[in-house]
């Protein structure tokens, strides 16, 4: 067994959810017809000037707060110079010596153990455009829609030692950014992107090994595969007496392997210098306090509330908060019907089961949180029999029909017509002399059989309490 131990650091790029771009007023929405969301400023025409979007600055401050960073009172912008056809000005406006956020940390859970990951810095920059290569026509086309979309880059300390830890961290950051409302964290669309720095060294070594930087990791699965491949690759090199080269490597989803992109010697000299077009920014305490006050409730706080106020178990609370869409739906549902526990139970059961089965998805729900709340309320208040939840819910998933309408249409309302109940139970007793005998002989468990049969026959039109009372009375004989 190898005694080599991986040390890993992360860079996470996140596109901010501002309405407009970071230095102009173009829409910052994803996609669009190529070059339909750009203007003279973001396409770098001569004479145009960037003007900083204050909302983007607020968002990066929020990113700093949710990751426990210090916020610099004085911050400024620099130019990172390099030629590439997707970068219209041939420099990216970024931040070098004075980023907005410094020295934070994020706690993650791995295998039931908490671990603290240190955040070195987070800075604000502009995204570049996209090139589309047409191999057949031997040509490349540039789409500048993405140019100038605000991007934050978080750099962690090399505090990770496994792919598992890295994935836990990325998931945690996605959750924090989503809750803070600053990024939609869609890795598949590139709104959250990861670079991984990884090196291997003997476990007791004080010095780190030579690192490789892995690019193009657009899913947590890719992160895991790339790290695992890289550990294997570097182990092979070191154990066969070779030397790992400091280089940037690209991960290929199709082969599962990393290949060299460029070596340290080919690294760009970015010739950073302060951008003379954008004056430095100074935050006042009042401004920072206002941004902090604007932060919504974060997942940890929600979880705490669910446990202490709603009495949910920790795993149940985790299961709800771990998906912000589900959690927001839950929040809205309990606003409509203030029975958090009953709604949580339904959502953790039937609701999530249907999602996992692929029968519904949060992005395209046919019904509103208030509709679900109404369903639970109907059951809670004995307007319907809870055994009919599933029947009604399936209708809601399929067509978005309101629970009351489903009950009308399928005649699912509780009638509590005692004579109807009595008639059904009289027939049951008459048809099942043997179980009746057993019950009267003291076999209590056959009561359940009668309950089930009565429920079935009554199609949920009577409440279990009524059925139970009539049954008990009739079975006594």
């Amino acid at each position, binding site marked *: 067994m190898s005694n080599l131990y991986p040390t890993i650091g992360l860079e996470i790029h996140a596109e901010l959810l501002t309405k407009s771009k970071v230095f102009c007023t173009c829409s910052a929405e994803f996609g669009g017809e190529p070059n339909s969301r750009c203007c*003279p400023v973001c*396409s*770098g*025409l*001569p*004479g*145009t*000037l*960037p*003007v*900083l979007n204050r909302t983007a600055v607020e968002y990066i401050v929020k990113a700093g707060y949710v990751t426990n960073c210090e916020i610099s009172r004085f911050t400024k912008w620099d*130019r990172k*110079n390099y*030629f*590439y*056809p997707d970068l*219209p*000005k*041939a*420099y990216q406006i970024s931040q070098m010596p004075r980023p907005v956020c410094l020295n934070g940390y994020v706690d993650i859970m791995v295998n039931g153990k908490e671990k603290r990951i240190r955040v070195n810095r987070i800075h604000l920059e502009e995204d570049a455009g996209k090139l589309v290569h047409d191999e057949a026509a031997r040509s*490349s086309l*540039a789409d500048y829609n993405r140019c100038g979309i605000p991007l934050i880059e978080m750099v962690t300390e090399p505090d990770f030692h496994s792919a598992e830890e890295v994935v836990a961290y990325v998931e945690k950051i996605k959750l924090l950014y989503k809750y803070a409302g600053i990024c939609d964290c869609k890795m598949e669309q590139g709104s959250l992107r990861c670079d991984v720095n990884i090196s291997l060294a003997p476990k007791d070594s004080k010095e780190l090994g030579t690192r490789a930087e892995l690019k193009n990791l657009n899913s947590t699965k890719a992160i895991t595969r790339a790290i695992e491949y890289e550990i294997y690759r570097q182990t092979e090199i070191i154990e066969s007496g070779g030397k790992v080269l400091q280089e940037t490597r690209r991960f290929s989803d199709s082969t599962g392997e990393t290949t060299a992109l460029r070596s340290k010697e080919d690294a760009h*000299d970015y*010739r*950073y*210098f302060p951008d*003379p*077009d*954008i*004056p430095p920014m100074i935050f006042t305490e009042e401004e920072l306090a206002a941004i902090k006050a604007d932060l919504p409730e974060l997942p940890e706080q929600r979880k705490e509330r669910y446990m202490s106020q709603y009495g949910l178990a920790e795993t149940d609370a985790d299961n709800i908060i771990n998906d912000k869409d589900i959690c927001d739906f839950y929040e809205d549902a309990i606003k409509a019907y203030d029975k958090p526990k009953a709604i949580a139970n339904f959502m953790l059961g039937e609701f999530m089961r249907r999602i996992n089965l692929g029968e519904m998805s949060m992005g395209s729900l046919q019904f509103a949180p208030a509709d679900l709340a109404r369903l639970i309320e109907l059951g809670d208040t004995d307007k319907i029999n809870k055994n009919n939840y599933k029947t009604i819910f399936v209708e809601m998933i399929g067509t978005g029909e309101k629970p009351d309408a489903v009950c009308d249409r399928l005649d699912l309302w509780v009638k509590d017509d005692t004579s109807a109940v009595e008639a059904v139970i009289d027939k049951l007793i008459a048809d099942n002399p043997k179980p009746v005998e057993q019950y009267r002989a003291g076999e209590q468990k056959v009561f359940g059989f009668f309950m089930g049969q009565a429920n079935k026959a009554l199609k949920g039109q009577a409440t279990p309490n009524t059925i139970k009372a009539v049954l008990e009375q009739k079975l006594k004989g």
Partner: protein
Amino acid sequence: MDLKNITAAKLRAMLDSKEISAREAASEFLSEIKKNDGKVLSFITVTEDEAMKNADAAQKRIDTGNAAPLTGIPLALKDNLCTDGIRTTCSSKMLGDFVPPYSATAVEKLIAQDYTLLGKVSMDEFAMGGSTQTSAFAKTKNPYDTSRVPGGSSGGSAAAVAAGFCAAALGSDTGGSIRQPASFCGVTGLKPTYGRVSRYGLVAFASSLDQIGPIARSAEDCGLILNAIAGADPHDATSKNVPFTDFNEKLGKDIKGIKIAIPKEFYGDAVDDEVKTAVMNAAHEYEKMGAELVDCSISTLRYAVQAYYLISSAEAASNLSRYDGIKYGLRGEGHSFDEMIRDSRNRGFGAEVKRRILLGNYALSSGYYDAYYRKALALKQQIISEYNAVFDKADVILTPTAPSVAYKIGAQDNDPVKMYTADICTVTVNIAGLPAINTTCGYNADGMPIGMSIVGRRFDEATIIQTADAFEKTFTPVRCTL
């Protein structure tokens, strides 16, 4: 009607009194351009149709009694000011066919007054130079002596004003590019405080130093134009919201008691005696008017040219990187991005521009940044403090604008260092972000104009306009003849 030597202020009165129509004014200048610009080569693009359209719009406004100060005044624009639908070349092959889809904010403000655009005038390529001889399209000549340079980089603007091709012009000034050509061509040129005029739509050379300003026949005209183009702009984060009412508000007021600082370093060996004499004569003229001369020192002047060329070239190297031939401008050839970009830039840029790009990238390179760029920034701070100290005891500063009068075309072609050193008198003003105005204070034995510069406190353009105007009222200019 001869408008060659008329000021914009006088033309305003003539337009308002219907002594002349806006169309007649435009036609007069256009015919002058046709007749004589072949000798001066100041225009790159003459916008005759545009001028007539503008004039008609202006006339309507005049006829309804709603004329603004520049309504119907025919102006020329330096060709680095973006004009919507009109090509803007920066005198570079790189942008030879570039037609911007927007106008500079300063131009928009002129349009709002219904000025008349006569055309776009030549300059040193991307405003890099002091002779207008690096222009790829029109190597402008000095109207006082066409064997001499008009100065630069706003040489086309200064020459067109001096030759009587327009009532006034806009130029831009990064290290003296308004004041020095104004000095060489015997006209008045104002570089406003950094942040006074929006840079939006001015094709950037060195962003922390560039300012747009007027070149005209009088300080008063400079004030009129500055009134129109000044003000904070949401499209330029470096523009400043410093309120003003009228930059000409102090015109004609007594300058008695005003303190004029004479920094000794500006009167050293680098400056020709005939220039020093003319400027000192003007200083004594001011004394006669009751001004007080104060000795002072700007000791960092000896490092100013170096600091200026490091800062301006570093910014230029970055600003000009966008010209890769991909989105607009000259498109080169090649089998890869790199080859194509290289070929575009190699063919599109002239030698001086390439020299500055190399210098700037060198100064910013890792390992050299601390030795060059960082030191230049430190010098900038020192220059600012020295100017602050001078303004503690004086209201304005008086210096020569250039070490010599306009030199012969070709005289500095092979000596860039000599050419750079000639900027000594003007660059510190840009580094410190101060306003300064050049006006003519004499002529040498060959009849070539000599200019002096009056430098003011930040955002105190009114005082330097007043001071320049006071001298102009005592001085009879000798206009050139072509």
